[in-house]
């Protein structure tokens, strides 16, 4: 079956290599819970990747243009098997498409869910006000995700464990990139420092929110398939604390009351729907997956 003969609209991977992954569900684990947990991790990566690609052709220098595109590609690569995991553990999550549509569940989840169906942290969905904010956002995302993935390597679910094992060294590169540029910008000109301090102030509350415990994550951790963000707070602080201290940047006090609903509940910021509109428009124009 060739790509051209079929007029496949969603890119070159007509027969998805991930379709052959072993997606059996571990004994005694609730499929709906496993799916809900995987979806949060998938959406964090998918939405962050979509946001990061905005920097393609706009980054301050060529190295960063390449770096941001590569990091986005890594995250997209992490999102895909996680979406497959969610769809196979709980098929009811996958949006219904017209009868006979060949669009795989992975794409249906990415392109045919409404904003309220996404479970990503609000940290990853905002547009970057400037490059300092892009650096701080990546630093916070990669540090937390790396700590979570280090635990997920031991998940009883083989897809989550596999994604995590591959993701750990990738996220370590992402964190290194962000941490180096954080120090450069914080110690650079008066202007770069001002912007870096402002980015930490703006994003810190969303970082705290991403480390809040959510019922799905607690249950997934208890079932031996997931990690509770509360359990990685210390590890995250042990990385970020010395880094911020070296940069001479003080995070704002985390006194803000926890919002009633977060991104993990499907509550998103006003910036999120326009982001999805752009990401989903081509797929939604072709629900049969063909031109």
């Amino acid at each position, binding site marked *: 079956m060739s790509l051209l003969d079929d007029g496949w609209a969603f890119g070159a991977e007509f027969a998805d290599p991930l379709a052959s992954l072993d997606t059996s569900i571990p004994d005694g684990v609730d499929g709906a819970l496993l799916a809900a947990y995987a979806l949060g991790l998938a959406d964090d990566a998918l939405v962050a990747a979509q946001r990061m690609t905005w920097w393609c052709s706009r980054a301050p220098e*060529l*190295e960063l243009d390449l770096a941001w595109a590569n990091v986005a590609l*890594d995250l997209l*690569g992490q999102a895909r098997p996680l979406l497959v995991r969610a769809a196979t553990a709980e098929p009811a999550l996958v949006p219904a498409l017209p009868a006979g549509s060949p669009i795989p569940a992975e794409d249906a989840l990415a392109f045919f869910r409404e904003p309220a169906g996404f479970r990503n942290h609000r940290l990853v969905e905002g547009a970057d006000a400037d490059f300092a904010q892009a650096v701080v956002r990546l630093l916070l995302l990669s540090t937390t995700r790396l700590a979570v993935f280090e635990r997920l390597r031991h998940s009883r679910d083989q897809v989550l464990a*596999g994604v995590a094992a*591959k993701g750990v060294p990738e996220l370590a590169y992402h964190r290194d990139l962000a941490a180096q540029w954080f120090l450069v910008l914080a110690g650079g000109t008066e202007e770069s420092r001002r912007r870096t301090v402002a980015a930490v102030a703006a994003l810190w509350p969303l970082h705290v929110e991403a480390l809040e415990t959510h019922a799905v994550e607690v249950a997934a951790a208890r079932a031996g398939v997931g990690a509770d963000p509360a359990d990685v707070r210390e*590890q995250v602080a042990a990385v970020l604390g010395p880094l911020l201290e070296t940069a001479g940047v003080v995070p704002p006090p985390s006194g803000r009351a926890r919002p009633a609903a977060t991104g993990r509940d499907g509550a998103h910021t006003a910036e999120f729907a326009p982001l999805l509109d752009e990401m989903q428009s081509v797929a939604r124009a072709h629900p049969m997956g063909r031109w």
Partner: protein
Amino acid sequence: MSVSAVTTHAERRQAAWLVAAAVPDPELPMLTLADLGVLRAVEVAADGAVEVVLTPTWSGCPALATMRDDVVRRVDEAGLGPVRVLVELLPAWSSDDISPQGRRALAEHGVSPPRPGARRTGPVPLSLGRHRAVSCPRCDGAAETLSAWGPTPCTSLHRCGECGEPFQHIKEVG
């Protein structure tokens, strides 16, 4: 190899392994899939199909689909089909899985191979760029890093301080 030359399952499996192992990597054609360490197993399934098990390198690497298509085409062309490719994630691929022959082939083609010992299990410390130095694949001179991110996720860019030649280095992951 023709179909008639292959009689038993074991012979077909062995023949298919040799064909799949020799498929070149789509991005680094000096390496075979066996050299790269992504070919995990070849079996003959109950329905008679040859099953080739591959593992991806980097999560987002688009080369996986091309590898899959190339394996299917070559095994088919060798008269050993039907064939299908399965993907497994565990154990995760590491740059340590590149064979000694693969490392030599990379260096001979001016690409700096990843250093061994990448695989680790504990928490990853923040390195802040203090990676071990990369040396030139041509003259072994000490090299500077031009960019930790090359044209693909798996590569970084360097320039030799001795001969001045720029080159790619395959990053360590494990």
